[in-house]
């Protein structure tokens, strides 16, 4: 479970600028900041209106940035974590620090 913050347009943020609403969700577990901040989280009971007038009722979690970009950022994040873990293992098994 992770705490994220949503602004007046329900866009997600990893830090609160003092005006946002905190939300607890497991949807973003394991996700990098760039991924999280490309999403919109509309809580249950709230309604968001898209620029074309279509309305959506929460709870809705959907990207507002191009998902391909978010996916790319998340894959890079996971590659870096894997490399870090492999380096740590190498050290644990006798490598130099």
């Amino acid at each position, binding site marked *: 479970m992770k705490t994220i913050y949503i602004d007046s347009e329900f866009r997600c943020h990893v830090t609160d600028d003092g005006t946002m609403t905190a939300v607890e969700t497991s*949807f973003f577990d394991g996700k990098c900041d760039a991924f999280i901040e*490309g999403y*919109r989280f509309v809580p*249950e009971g709230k309604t*968001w209106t*898209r620029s*074309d007038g*279509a309305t*959506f*009722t*929460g*709870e*809705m*979690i*959907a*990207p*507002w*940035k*191009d*998902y*391909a970009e978010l*996916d790319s950022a998340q894959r890079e994040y996971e590659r870096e974590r894997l490399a870090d873990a492999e380096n740590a293992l190498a050290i644990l098994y006798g490598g130099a620090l």
Partner: protein
Amino acid sequence: MALTDKLTAIGDAIRLQSEKTGKLTLDQMPGEIANLQPLNFKVVGGTAAPSNPKENTIWVDTSTAVSEWVYSDHQPDASINGRVWIKSGSGGDPNFDALKGKNWIFLYPRFTKQVVNGVWVDKTAKVYLSGAWKDLWDGTLYDSGNQYDSFTGGWLASSDDTVNYVAFQSDKIQFFNTGGTTMPVAIYTKKKIDVSNFNTLQIEWNLSRDKDVKFGLTNSNTTGNAPSFTASTTVTGTGSKVSTLDISSATGEFYVSVTANCSPIELFKIKLI
């Protein structure tokens, strides 16, 4: 009609299409005609597909004579009986170049309707591309028993036990949790769907209960009873509903999935808009 009048009429016809105003010699006319951009497709009606269609022929399956056709985003008025409306899409298949010659206009026909006795009536249509008829597609993934196999690959259920399961009935998909201990069940499309040119995922259904009812896009259809959603809407409340999910930024291919941990849930239609 004097011969010069006939030649002038030909020149006038060329000028009308080319939007040029200058006079033309006979030697110039073939070149001007060759540079015109006639349409590269035709629209025909009938209850049987044309037997020797040309590439890009749109065949509307109808017993009502096609008096005219309109290709547009917005539905025109129903004032002309036999008028066919071809809804324009913004991408995806099928598609084709509407012009002959060096310039391009790509058309993405989605579905057709026709004015029959003063009202618009849905009509199925196909377009002839690369030697085969291709269905026009309006984004429907499931409708009242039709699984739209050619686009979805069909639908699969996560569970086939006798207590918590999904039934694909002749007119709807029904979720069942009949035992004392319920568990979620899920359905998935068998194929990934390119949702890049759609903005909304919409479901029409009837919920008798609303425990853990959710639908959306996933990157896998092998996660069993617990879909790992990339985008989702969780639905609360009971009764007949039209539920929606914003997918306007979801570019690429995804499976579509629906899950519930209650019953009965009756699912009638799933559509990309």
